[in-house]
């Protein structure tokens, strides 16, 4: 055995051992709840800085009809099995009422016809899934701002919670029911709508019929489908597991602007 080979063998072994130790260390720290909790604190910084540099009324990019995705990929629940939702679906949502309550002066229960009669907006926007893909669709819906004004938000209302008709995960405590929440900046953004049309047709079940939220400056999981009820709240920590949404309760950021 000549010396260079020994030396090379020694070097390879050392580098290999260091690499393995490094990866094992990464794996350990990656699983450590305290470490994950620590790095999670960056979310607050991201939210504050994005709120600071993005004008409150700055619009998400709008596209042309030629940009629309041939198929708007449905994700999450695509056909809710919840009995209440199935009953509405069977009757063509004739008895459906969008409930608006919580910290409002005038609680509402609006039929779909009444929702369609509200000030509306049509927009061709890009939907960004947290997984990484994007789809472009044309949405028509009732603007959330005027709807909230109709109900009259109380002074202490800070968030709007969206309760959905679909159970995405079977749980014993009901925490598998989909829900979402946004703050009033996004609620009053001109592009924030409760959509009832996709690509000029009635919103399909797979994409969230009868109403789905569009909050265009955030990721896909914020775009709650099968919206049944809106609640104005001061704080959402008492709702479900307390993080402000189905995916937020499963580790995703509440502020999904990035």
């Amino acid at each position: 055995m000549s010396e260079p080979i020994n030396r090379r063998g020694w070097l390879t072994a050392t580098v290999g051992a260091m690499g393995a130790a490094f990866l094992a260390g990464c794996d350990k720290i990656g699983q450590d709840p305290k470490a994950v909790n620590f790095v999670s604190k960056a979310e607050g910084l991201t939210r504050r800085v994005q709120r600071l540099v993005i004008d409150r009324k700055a619009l998400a990019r709008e596209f042309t009809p030629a940009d629309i995705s041939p198929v708007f990929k449905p994700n999450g629940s695509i056909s809710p099995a919840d009995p209440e939702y199935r009953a509405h679906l069977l009757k063509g949502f004739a008895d459906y009422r969008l409930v608006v309550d919580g910290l409002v002066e005038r609680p509402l229960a609006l039929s779909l016809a009444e929702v369609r009669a509200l000030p509306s907006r049509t927009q061709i926007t890009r939907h960004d899934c947290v997984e990484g893909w994007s789809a472009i669709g044309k949405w028509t819906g009732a603007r959330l701002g005027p709807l909230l004004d109709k109900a009259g938000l109380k002074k202490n209302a800070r968030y709007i919670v969206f309760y959905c008709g679909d159970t995405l995960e079977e749980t014993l405590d009901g925490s598998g029911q989909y829900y979402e929440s946004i703050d009033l900046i996004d609620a009053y953004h001109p592009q924030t709508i409760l959509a009832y049309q996709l690509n000029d047709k009635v919103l399909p079940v797979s994409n969230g019929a009868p109403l789905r939220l569009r909050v265009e400056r955030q990721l896909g999981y914020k775009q709650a489908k099968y919206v049944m009820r809106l609640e104005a709240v001061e704080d959402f920590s008492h709702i479900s597991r307390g993080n402000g949404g189905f995916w937020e309760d499963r580790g995703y950021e509440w502020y999904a602007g990035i």
Partner: protein
Amino acid sequence: MNSPMTTQDRAAKPKKVLVYRHRGVTRLTHWLNVLAVTFLLMSGLEIFNAHPALYWGQKATFDQPWISMGAAQKADHTIGVTRIGSLTLETTGVLGYSGPPGMQEERGFPAWATLPSSRDLADGRRWHFFFAWLFVINGLTYWIVSLINGHIRKDLAPTIADLKPKNVWHEIVTHAKLRFPKGEEARHYNVLQKGAYLAVALVLLPMMVATGLTMSPGFNAAAPWLLDLFGGRQSARTLHFISASLVVGFILLHLAMVVASGTWNNIRSMITGRYAIEVPDPAVPPSQVLGAAE
């Protein structure tokens, strides 16, 4: 600049002197960058694995990614495949399908390359955005300080002599032979080092941040021009991936050069700032040597 008349021309035994090569800020930002880039690369692969396919343009064309990774059936067993355009490569064990025996699963990059190792997009994002902040703050600090203290102008900007084709070719040939500048010439970065460091610090790493921000639906509303610059959000995701691959390429080349040109001397210089060079004249007082490096 320096005549080639250095060590070889003198009979005197060359003397090793320590020159001050890297300022404190350069050293600190270098190691913080190592930390941030390591976490960003590994958590980035975790995020990539949530949808291991890349597209060009504003939106995803699901059946036509330009590159994708996944599992496929071959005879009676599962294999990992990587598709690039119309090319299909079998990459079992590394890309598309990997894991310990009996526990293989369909995944883009293997568990050892991702943070966390398990499939956990939520945690991957949390690691990524935390270290993205460290990366940006550290990078801005490096830029600002290096502009003010002249590091970029004096040490990194190539001189006219550096850029002469003859010199560039000379450096390429000597690097390829793993013969590195010695003596007086080793006091300064050579043109290949300058080019590589400038390209990484001023182009490639900022490109990571810009393409990353272009994927943010929030930031798109503030700077829609970024979408036009990179050709859309899915193009930005592709460019983010390609840039990250180039970063990995740079790191591998950089590490190879560190080892080839003197592992310990290089590592010491990035820790203590002192870099040993061989000077022909033992009479040079150390005080004159210090500081002359920069």
